[in-house]
C-alpha cells in the first residue's frame, strides 16, 4: 500500500476530486496549507508599501491506495491538477505499513 500526498492549486480541487472518484478512489483527506516551491511567493502592495508574501495557499490531498492503483491514481492527479504553469504542485508517494478501519477493526488492503 502507498500513501499519496499531493500538493495542488486550490482551484483545481474539484477537478482532482472528480478525477479520483472516476477511477474508483473512495476516500481522501484534504488540508488547506501554505508553502512555496519554484513559484516562490507573491508581492502585495498597500499604498505603495510592498510586502513579499513567502507562502502561497495550496491544498494538500492525502489518500491511501493499493499498490496496483498507484499509477492510475498519480496519473489522474497529474492530469486533473495540471495547468502547465509554474506552481502546479507536487505528488509525494510513501510506503504505507498498515491501515486500520476504526469501526470494524479491519486491517491492510481490506480497510482501504
Amino acid at each position, binding site marked *: 500500500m502507498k500513501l499519496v500526498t499531493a500538493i495542488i492549486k486550490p482551484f483545481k480541487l474539484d477537478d482532482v476530486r472528480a478525477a479520483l472518484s472516476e477511477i474508483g478512489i473512495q476516500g481522501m483527506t484534504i488540508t488547506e496549507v501554505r508553502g512555496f516551491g519554484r513559484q516562490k511567493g507573491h508581492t*502585495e*502592495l*498597500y*499604498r*505603495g*508599501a510592498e*510586502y513579499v508574501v513567502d507562502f502561497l495557499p495550496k491544498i494538500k490531498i492525502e489518500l491511501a491506495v493499493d499498490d496496483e492503483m498507484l499509477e492510475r491514481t498519480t496519473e489522474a492527479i497529474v492530469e486533473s491538477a495540471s495547468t502547465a504553469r509554474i506552481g502546479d504542485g507536487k505528488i509525494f508517494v510513501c510506503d504505507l505499513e498498515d491501515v486500520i478501519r476504526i469501526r470494524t477493526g479491519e486491517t491492510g488492503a481490506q480497510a482501504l
Partner: protein
Amino acid sequence: MDGFKRIFLKRYALMTALMLLPALAWGQEADVLDTGDTAWMLTATALVLLMTIPGLALFYGGLVRSKNVLSVLGQCFAITGMASVLWYVIGYGLAFGDGGAFFGTPGDKLFLVGVTADSMTGTIPETVFATFQMTFAVITPALIVGGFAERMKFSSMMLFMAAWLLLVYAPVCHWVWGGGWISTHGALDFAGGTVVHINAGIAALVAALVLGKRRGYPKAQMRPNNLGYTVIGASLLWVGWFGFNAGSALGANGTAGMAMLVTQIASAMAALTWMFVEWIRHGKPSVLGIATGAVAGLVAITPACGVVGPMGAIFIGFAGGFCAFWASTSLKRRFSYDDSLDVFGVHGSAGIIGALLTGVFCAEQFGGAGFGSDEITTIGGQLWAQGIGVVATIIYGGVASYIILKVVGQLTGGLRVNEEDEVLGLDLALHDEQGYNL
C-alpha cells in the same frame, strides 16, 4: 455670533443674502427659525458623527495589524466622548465666543449656559449649530490617530487629544469660522480644509516624527488586517461627508445643493484618479487605492465646496487624488517617516492642494461664487489669502502640536508603549482584549 454672521453673509453673499431678505424686510433684528434649515442641519449633524463612528474608525481599523485593531477603534470612540464633553465645557466658547482675532471669549458659552432652546444662530437653533460644530471637533482629533497608530500609550493619546482640541483646534476654528483673523483677510474655507484636514494632517505628521517609527518599519510585514473594514469605512465617510460639506451651508438652500454636487464629483474623480495612476504605475488597480482616492477627493473639495462649481470640482478632485497618491507613496518613502495610516499623505496633502485651488476655482469665470472679500479682485489675490491661511495653520498647528507632545511625554513618562507591548499588540497590552478570537 455677530462676527460669525458677518462672515457668513460675506462668504455666501449672493444666495444667503437673498435668503435672508424676507427676514430683513420684516424689519426684525431677531433671527427667525427656518424649519427646513433646521431639519437639514439636524440630519447633517448626525451624518458628520457617522463619519467618525463608525466611518473613520473602520477606515483606520482595517488598516492596522490584527493585534492593534481594537486600539484604533477604541481611540476613535474615546475621542468622540472626550471631544464632545470638552466642547460642552469650554471648546465651543473658545471657538465661537465673541471677541478676539485669536481665541473666542468663552464668556456665556462656558458650559453652554447661555445656549437655550430659544438661542438662534442664523436661521437654526444654536443648539443645532453647537452640536454640528461638536461633531467637527470630534472628527478632527480622531483623524490624527492614524499618524501614531500601533505605538502610542492610551493615556498619552487622551492627554494629547484634550490639549490639542483646546489649544489648536479651537483657535484655528475661531480664526476661520468664528470671526477670527484668517476669515477677515478673505481666505475661503467653506467646510474645513484648513481647520480640519490640514490641521489634523500636520499634527499627525508631527506626532509620527516625535514618536518615531513603528518597530520594524519599513522592513517588517505590516499588512492590513481587514481591508473590508477599510472600504466600508471609506464608504461611510463618503456618505457622511454630505453632512459635513453640504451641512456647512448651515441651511437647506442652493449653496448646500451645490456643495453636495461638487462633493460627489470631486470624490468620484479622485477615486478614479488614484485608481488609474496606480494601474499605470503598478499594473493593477488596488481596492485600497480606489477607496483612499475617494477620501482624498472629499478632503480636497472640503474648503471649496460652497464656493466652486462642477468644473472646479473635477479639477480639484483630480489634483486631490493625484497629490494624495504621490504624498502617501513617493514622498513618504523619500523621507522615510512612519505616518502609519497616511493622515498627512491623504488629509494634509489633499487639504493643502484643495485650499489653494479653492482660490482659483472660486473665480466667477470658472463657475465659482466669487472671491472671499470685496478687497480681493484677482485669482492671484485670492490665492495669496488662501496661502496665508494654509501656512499659518501649518506653522501654528505644527509648532503647537510639537510642544503639546513634548509636555505630554514628560507627564506620562514617554509617549510610546514599551517594546514588549508593541510586539504583543496594543489590544492585549493596553486593553486586555482582542479584536479577533477566531
